[in-house]
């Protein structure tokens, strides 16, 4: 009984051992293709569709994946290994399968303005030697840059041209000219970049010019207005000033069908403001009123005069007499009499 059990145990242990061994050895009909550098294994064996159907799909796939991974890991451990801080690492060889790049290759840099022009004219670059002979220093020096050969900025004396202003500082003039050339070059560089990226060149309107056109002046004004600490937020505009063009600001309108009551309220508010801005005393109106009153008085006077005149005519005497009578009339209460006369006519 005991012996039997011992044998059984031994057999069991052997079996287990075999299982373990089997677990790291996988048999395949065709060898797998390995690309250890990419940690890649390709299984070219046919998949038995019957197995796939009979077994549970998940189990089948899992066991297949496990076997292939085992093979890949076996392959990895065939590579030379070394110990790095308690961990055994394998050194992978170079990958044999080239992988395609993720992004498309970069486009060639678009040609600069000069390159375009040079191509058009057929101008080709000529390579100059880097070193040139410096006569004064008696040595070979670089053509450009620091410690260059034949450096004219190191001159201790400068000739004043006959046509130039004798008080002009020729050294300062040269430095200024150089700075302007550098600035221009930088500006051209930025323009090239801007053109390549198809964006507007900022601040084109402010290049120094001998004579600015109307548009350029306008642009200069708009740039100057926004060149305050608050980016021109508090700059007042002139009464009839036009809006600056190309500022990048888009027009924005209210929605077509929005808040009608709000719109009405705004318009009423605007009307109120417009109304309050009207002068209380309209001068032309006041003058007109005055003129009308004058007219009326004159007309009234003429009316009275006319009546008197008729009387005068009847009597056959000149108007002087009527005038005398006129003085007496108001006292006599004539207006009332006139009215009476008028009324019957109307009826």
């Amino acid at each position, binding site marked *: 009984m005991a012996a039997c059990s011992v044998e059984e145990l031994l057999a069991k242990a052997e079996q287990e051992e075999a299982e373990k061994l089997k677990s790291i050895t996988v048999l395949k009909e065709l060898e797998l293709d390995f690309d250890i550098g990419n940690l890649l294994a390709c299984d070219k064996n046919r998949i038995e569709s019957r197995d796939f159907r009979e077994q549970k799909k998940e189990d089948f796939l899992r066991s297949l994946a496990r076997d292939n991974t085992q093979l890949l890991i076996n392959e990895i451990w065939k590579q030379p290994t070394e110990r790095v801080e308690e961990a055994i690492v394998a050194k992978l060889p170079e990958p044999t399968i080239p992988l395609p790049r993720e992004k498309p290759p970069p486009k060639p840099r678009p040609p600069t303005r000069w390159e375009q022009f040079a191509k058009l004219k057929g101008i080709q670059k000529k390579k100059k030697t880097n070193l040139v002979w410096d006569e004064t220093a008696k040595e070979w020096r670089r053509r450009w840059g620091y410690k260059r050969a034949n450096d004219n900025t190191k001159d201790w004396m400068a000739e004043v041209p006959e046509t130039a202003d004798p008080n002009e500082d020729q050294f300062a003039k040269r430095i200024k000219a150089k700075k302007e050339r550098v600035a221009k070059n930088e500006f051209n560089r930025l323009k090239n970049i801007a053109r390549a990226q198809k964006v507007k060149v900022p601040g084109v309107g402010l290049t120094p010019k001998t004579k600015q056109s109307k548009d350029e002046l306008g642009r200069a004004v708009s740039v100057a207005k926004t060149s305050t600490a608050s980016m021109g937020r508090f700059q007042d505009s002139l009464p009839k000033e036009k809006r600056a063009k190309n500022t990048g600001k888009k027009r924005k309108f209210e929605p*077509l069908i929005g808040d009608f009551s709000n719109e*009405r309220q705004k318009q*009423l508010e605007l009307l109120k403001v417009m109304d309050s801005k009207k002068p209380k005393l309209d001068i032309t109106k006041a003058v*007109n009123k005055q003129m009308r009153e004058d007219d009326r008085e004159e007309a009234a006077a003429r009316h009275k005069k006319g009546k008197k005149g008729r009387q005068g005519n009847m009597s056959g005497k000149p108007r002087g007499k009527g005038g005398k009578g006129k003085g007496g009339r108001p006292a006599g209460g004539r207006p009332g009499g006139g009215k009476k006369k008028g009324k019957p006519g109307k009826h």
Partner: protein
Amino acid sequence: MRPLTEEETKTLFEKLSKYIGENIKLLVDRPDGTYCFRLHKDRVYYMSEKILKLATHFSRDKLVSVGTCFGKFTKTSKFRLHITALDFLAPYAKYKVWVKPGAEQSFLYGNHVLKSGLGRITENTAQYQGVVVYSMADVPLGFGVAAKTTQECRRVDPMSIVVFHQADVGEFIRNEDTLT
């Protein structure tokens, strides 16, 4: 189509106020519904909210007109009234001019109103005041600008202009193709 900006609204109201004064309020705030001004192809249209909502179903280039055209903004962003606005100017007009029956036709052909054709004029009319022109039967014929004050009108000779012509109902026939 879009609502007017504040500046455009101001320009429009300034022009309208020359004819109807503070009566614009009655156009903006109406008891019989919501009415609004909308800009379409530089023209200002006055319409009810209902019509506006119906008009939104039409694309911009297919929409010829909606509501009542009041006038248009010129390229120098001034506002010019069209004769189509007369329906809304006439009932609220503050200053009126009546023309004699004989001068009606002349005015309707686009001529200025002469002193000889002047039937009546509102008292107190200032010079260059916007006026609505009526026939003696109180039919609105158009509008214009007073060339002379009421006072001056009395004195001037019969052949001098008293009202500058701006628009008249004859335009409905003369400018039939451009009026919307």
